């Protein structure tokens, strides 16, 4: 196969694999921002937290980080519930969500990053898994397992969330609360409780996605900030609150980043997600799939 064709195909493959992971990272924002209208700008902080938790357990006991994160996801769920409680009591109830809520989550993002720096320092941390160095080859086309495994689990998780939202009573309550809280109340369901649990779910997905992240690449505390643009870009691109939209938006972003990295150099990659976000907001705020 010609070298340049192989390069392009590899860029596409890497982009798709990354894209799947980006969907897992962003599905939480689809819920918290797209459906619940909570601007949880601290979402990436929980991703990084998940990375470090996975790192600690992997470092100490050698367990696979992805398995660990799934096992520990209830912890993140509980954390999400607590966080929503505070947010609701201090902001949503008082009707001051916009400015103060934003500042609040920004503060949380910030504090998390700083605490991680204080505990772990700014060095990159990585994990060792059975498949970290394995790459499946088909001719000149590479399928690195460190991308493939998170991709598969990511897609599974995103699909799982979508099925949950559309096929269970609680899931549909979440979809309903996004549209008409009053109707929900009239049906005897407490919207606050629904939102609390939905938000907790979003944080849980973040924690799990963090484990995917540290399998894919080494992690250090400030990486969280780079993901803010990414998750909101994916969410906006995908049309806010549509899980399938999130997946498509994520794949688009993954491929765009992969191509930029391959042909312009990796130092330009962070600009891709944010640039795409700015462009989308400026020209097509309803996203690719529009709502």
């Amino acid at each position: 196969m010609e070298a340049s064709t192989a390069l392009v195909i590899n860029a596409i493959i890497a982009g798709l694999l990354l894209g799947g992971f980006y969907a897992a990272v962003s599905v939480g924002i689809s819920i918290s921002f797209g459906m619940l209208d909570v601007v949880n700008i601290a979402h990436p902080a929980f991703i990084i937290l998940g990375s470090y938790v996975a790192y600690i357990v992997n470092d100490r006991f050698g367990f696979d980080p992805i398995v660990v994160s799934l096992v520990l996801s209830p912890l993140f769920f509980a954390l999400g519930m607590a966080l929503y409680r505070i947010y609701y009591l201090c902001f949503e109830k008082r009707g001051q969500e916009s400015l103060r809520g934003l500042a609040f989550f920004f503060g949380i993002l910030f504090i998390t990053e700083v605490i991680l720096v204080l505990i772990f320092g700014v060095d990159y941390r990585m994990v060792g898994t059975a498949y970290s160095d394995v790459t499946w080859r088909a001719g000149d086309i590479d399928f690195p397992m460190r991308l493939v495994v998170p991709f598969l689990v990511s897609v599974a998780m995103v699909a799982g969330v979508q099925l949950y939202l559309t096929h269970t009573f609680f899931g549909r309550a979440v979809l309903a609360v996004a549209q008409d809280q009053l109707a929900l109340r009239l049906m005897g369901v407490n919207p606050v409780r629904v939102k609390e649990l939905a938000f907790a779910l979003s944080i849980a997905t973040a924690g799990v996605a963090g484990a995917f992240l540290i399998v894919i690449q080494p992690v250090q505390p400030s990486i969280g900030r780079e993901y803010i643009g990414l998750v909101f870009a994916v969410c906006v691109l995908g049309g806010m609150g549509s899980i399938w939209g999130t997946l498509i938006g994520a794949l688009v972003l993954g491929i765009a980043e992969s191509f930029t990295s391959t042909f312009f150099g990796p130092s330009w990659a962070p600009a891709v997600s944010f640039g795409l976000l700015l462009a989308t907001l400026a020209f097509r705020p309803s996203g690719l799939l529009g709502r």
Partner: protein
Amino acid sequence: MSNRVFAVVAFAFALAFAAASQLISNEYFFTAAYTVLQFVILATAWNILGGYTGYVNFGSAAFFAIGAYSTVVLYNGFKAPLPVMIVTGTLVAGLAGLGLGYLTLRLRGVFFAIASLALSVVLFTFIVNWDYVGGARGAYVLQPREVPFGLPRYIHLLYIVMVLQAAVSLIVARTIEKSTIGRGLAAIRDDELAAECSGVPTLRLKIFSTMVSCALMGMAGTTFPYYLSFIEPTSAFSLTYAVNSIAMPLIGGMMSWIGPLIGAILLGTVQQLVQVMFSLGAWNLLIVGVLLVLFVTLAPNGIMGWVDALRKRRDRR
């Protein structure tokens, strides 16, 4: 107090601070004061869009860096004199604010906030890849050997410039606050739809507010390359600027020009002390972050809000 009188008073204070500084023998004072004054300008500037208009800007660092890097460009280009650098940086930052505002202010405030953060990262990536200004390695901007006005060291001049810039920012902020435009901005903050339906040209005012705010933030950055004679992207775009420019007005009080001033002086001084005592930058930031979260949840009107509440309670008696 009319605008003119306030301006005179502000400049009088500035000159007094400038003159008094020549009596101080501890050189560390100037480095510390420079940083605190930076924050006074940034906090005051941020509050014009944040506190007065109700739009959160997470990208203060971007506009600060625009000011700093336009100085670098002018320095590399033809060693322009400092006043030219200051004016240029301010204008470029203002234009960038206009651009950001024009693109995103038609959307909900939330999207403006996210876009401002996005701008920060895009600009950072751009600067990192731009060799003319040194890219990731950084650039040297050497202080002139001869210090103007016969001052002992260049940092003294920088200090005086910052004091004047701080006075300018406070004057601008207060003038806007007390003007008709200020009332319009407050209406937008309280209820944008009602403001629009009361005749306030909301988009126009928001863009104006963004431009002024960003221009002043750029102004704060224009002397920064000279501060350490060196500048590199990570410190220019440091998260400290983003967090502090939000935390300081929030803690001081977002409704008037006094709040950011108080917040900047208090928080800025605390951070300087912590740095001296513990010399760990991260603890500094942790304190700011924790204070930000505490104040926004428990005392969202800040120190001035608390003062106002006390005053009202006293008036009632």
